[in-house]
C-alpha cells in the first residue's frame, strides 16, 4: 500500500476547479472549487468566467487537497492533469498549473483524457476496474458508450450522442419549465413525485435501422418543449412533475437500454456509469434493474466522484505510473478535442525526463 503511487490530479475542463490526491486506488483528497453559481444567471457555463475562476481557485485548492490528504508535495510520485477534451481556455489554466507544479517539484507530468478519467475514478470506489469494462458516460458535456480493456491504453468508442449531451437536455428542459440551472438535480427531484408514464415522449434512435449505440436527445427536447407550449397556449396548467418524470424516463430508458445491449453484444459482464448525470436516481435504479436482469454487474461511483473532480484525474494518473506509461513533455498542450481513443498524451521525446528517484517502481 505504501509503495502504491501517490499522485495529485488537476481538473479544469469545465467549471469545476478540482484537485484530488490518491494513493493507488485509495482516495486521499478531493478538493473542489466550483464557479457554477457565477454561471447560473447565464443558464449555462460561460467559458471566460470559468477560466477566470480557475486561475483564482487553483493555488488555494491545491493547498486544501494537500492538507486534506495529509501528505507533502515532496512525496508525490507524479502530477496528472486533464489535457482534454473540454473548454480550451479552461483546460489551459489547469495544464499550465500542472506543468509548473510538476517541474518545480521535479515530478513526472501526465496529461490525461477527461473521459478515461471518468471511467478510472471508479477504482477509488470499487477497486481495480474489471477488464474489459463497458462505460456509459453521461453529463452536460458528454454522452458516450465506451469499451476499455486497459484504461491507460485502450478506450474504444462504441457510441455517442449525435446532437445534444444528455445533461444538456436536462438543462434545457429545466429552463423551459423555469426550474433554473443546472437542470439535472431539480428535474430528478420533481420527477420523484411525477408519473413517468404520464406522457409518451419519443425515444431517440431506437428504431430497427438506427445505429445501435448512438444517442440523440435533440428530438426529445423539442417534443417536450412543444408539449409544454401546447399546454400553455391552451391556458392549461403544466403538470411539472409528470413532465419531469416522463422526460427523465425517456432519457434513462434509452441510455440503459443501449448500454445493456452493448454489454450483451460484446460479451462484457461489467457496466460502469459515470459523469454528472450518473447522479440521477432514476438512471441508477433503472440501470440496476436492467443489469440484474441481464446478469451484468453495475458499478456506479458515489455522486461526488461522478461529477468532474480532481480525484478522477489523479486515479488515472496513478494507473499511468503503476503501469509505467511514459510521462508527458513540458510542451504538453491543452487539446479541447482530444480523442477518447487517447487515454493520455505521452511525451514525444525523452529529453525532459526528470529524476527517477521519486518514481513508483
Amino acid at each position, binding site marked *: 500500500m505504501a509503495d502504491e503511487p501517490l499522485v495529485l490530479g488537476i481538473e479544469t475542463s469545465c467549471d469545476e476547479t478540482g484537485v484530488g490526491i490518491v494513493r493507488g486506488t485509495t482516495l486521499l483528497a478531493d478538493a473542489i472549487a466550483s464557479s457554477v453559481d457565477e454561471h447560473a444567471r*447565464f443558464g449555462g457555463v460561460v467559458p471566460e*468566467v470559468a477560466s*477566470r475562476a480557475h*486561475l483564482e481557485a487553483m493555488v488555494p485548492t491545491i493547498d486544501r487537497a494537500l492538507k486534506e490528504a495529509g501528505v507533502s508535495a515532496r512525496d508525490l510520485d507524479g502530477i496528472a492533469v486533464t489535457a482534454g477534451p473540454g473548454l480550451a*481556455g479552461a483546460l489551459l489554466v489547469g495544464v499550465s498549473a500542472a506543468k*509548473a*507544479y510538476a*517541474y518545480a517539484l521535479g515530478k513526472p507530468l501526465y496529461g490525461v483524457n477527461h473521459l478515461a478519467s471518468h471511467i478510472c475514478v471508479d477504482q477509488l470506489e470499487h477497486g481495480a476496474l474489471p477488464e474489459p469494462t463497458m462505460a456509459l458516460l453521461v453529463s452536460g458535456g458528454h454522452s458516450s458508450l465506451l469499451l476499455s480493456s486497459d484504461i491507460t491504453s485502450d478506450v474504444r468508442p462504441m457510441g455517442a450522442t449525435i446532437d445534444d449531451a444528455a445533461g444538456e437536455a436536462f438543462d434545457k428542459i429545466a429552463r423551459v419549465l423555469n426550474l433554473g440551472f443546472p437542470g439535472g438535480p431539480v428535474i430528478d427531484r420533481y420527477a420523484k413525485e411525477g408519473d413517468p408514464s404520464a406522457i409518451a415522449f419519443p425515444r431517440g434512435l431506437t428504431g430497427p435501422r438506427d445505429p445501435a449505440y448512438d444517442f440523440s436527445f435533440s428530438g426529445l427536447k423539442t417534443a417536450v418543449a412543444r408539449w409544454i407550449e401546447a399546454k400553455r397556449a391552451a391556458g392549461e396548467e403544466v403538470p411539472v412533475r409528470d413532465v419531469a418524470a416522463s422526460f427523465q424516463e425517456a432519457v434513462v430508458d434509452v441510455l440503459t437500454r443501449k448500454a445493456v445491449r452493448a454489454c450483451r453484444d460484446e460479451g462484457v459482464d461489467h457496466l460502469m456509469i459515470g459523469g454528472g448525470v450518473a447522479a440521477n436516481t432514476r438512471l441508477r435504479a433503472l440501470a440496476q434493474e436492467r443489469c440484474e436482469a441481464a446478469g451484468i454487474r453495475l458499478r456506479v461511483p458515489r455522486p461526488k466522484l461522478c461529477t468532474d473532480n480532481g480525484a478522477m484525474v489523479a486515479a488515472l494518473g496513478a494507473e499511468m505510473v503503476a503501469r509505467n506509461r511514459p510521462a508527458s513533455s513540458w510542451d504538453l498542450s491543452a487539446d479541447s478535442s482530444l480523442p477518447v481513443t487517447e487515454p493520455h498524451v505521452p511525451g514525444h521525446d525523452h529529453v*525532459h525526463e526528470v529524476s527517477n528517484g521519486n518514481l513508483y517502481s
Partner: protein
Amino acid sequence: MLLLALDTATPAVTVALHDGTDVIASSSQVDARRHGELLLPAVDRVLAEAGLTIDAVTGVVVGIGPGPYTGLRVGLMTADTFGLALGVPVHGVCTLDGLAYAADIEKGPFVVATDARRKEVYWAKYADSRTRLTDPAVDRPADIAGQVAGLPAVGAGALLYPDTFPVAHEPENVSAAALARLAVERLAAGRELPAPRPLYLRRPDAQVPKNYKVVTPK
C-alpha cells in the same frame, strides 16, 4: 538572489533570470497562439543556459498584463504555481511598465500601446521609462487620438495604428529581461510590487441566453 521573470501578456513568450546584479539568461519567442506549449520549455532552457535548477529561484516576477486573457493566464498560473511549489514570493509587474522600461526614454511624455485585438489597444501614458502617468486602459485608437496626439509611442499596438500613433517605434513586445530589471530596481528601492493578479480591463464576454426558443409553429 535569483529572480525568474516571465510574461505572456503580448504575443511574446518571454523568460529571464536575474541574479540581483543583472540578467544572466533569457529567451523570447513570438507566437501568439502557443503560449501554453512554449513557456515551460523556455523556463527549462533558460535555467539550463545559466547552469542552474529551479530550486535556486528565490522569487518569481510575472507580467500581469493587460493582455489577451488566454495567453495572459498562462504566465500568471505558471508564476502562481511556481510560488506555491517553491515557497517563494511572486511579484506582479504591469506589462506596459516593462515595455516602457525597455523603451529607455529619459524624457517623455510618451505612450505604450499593445494590441488588445478587436480593434482596440491596451495603453498608458508615461513621464519617462520608470514613471507611469495613467492607469492602464483599453480603448479604440481613434477614441484616444486626442489624448496621445503629438506623443511618441512604443509597442505593437502603436505600430498597428499609425493614424493614431504616427511616431511609433520599437520595442514591439515586452521582454522578461526588462521586466526583471525593473522589478529588481523597484524591490531595491523598497517599493512594493503589485500582487500577481491579472489586469483584464474588460468584463468577460457572456451571452445571456435568450428566453428559450418557441418551437411551436404559430
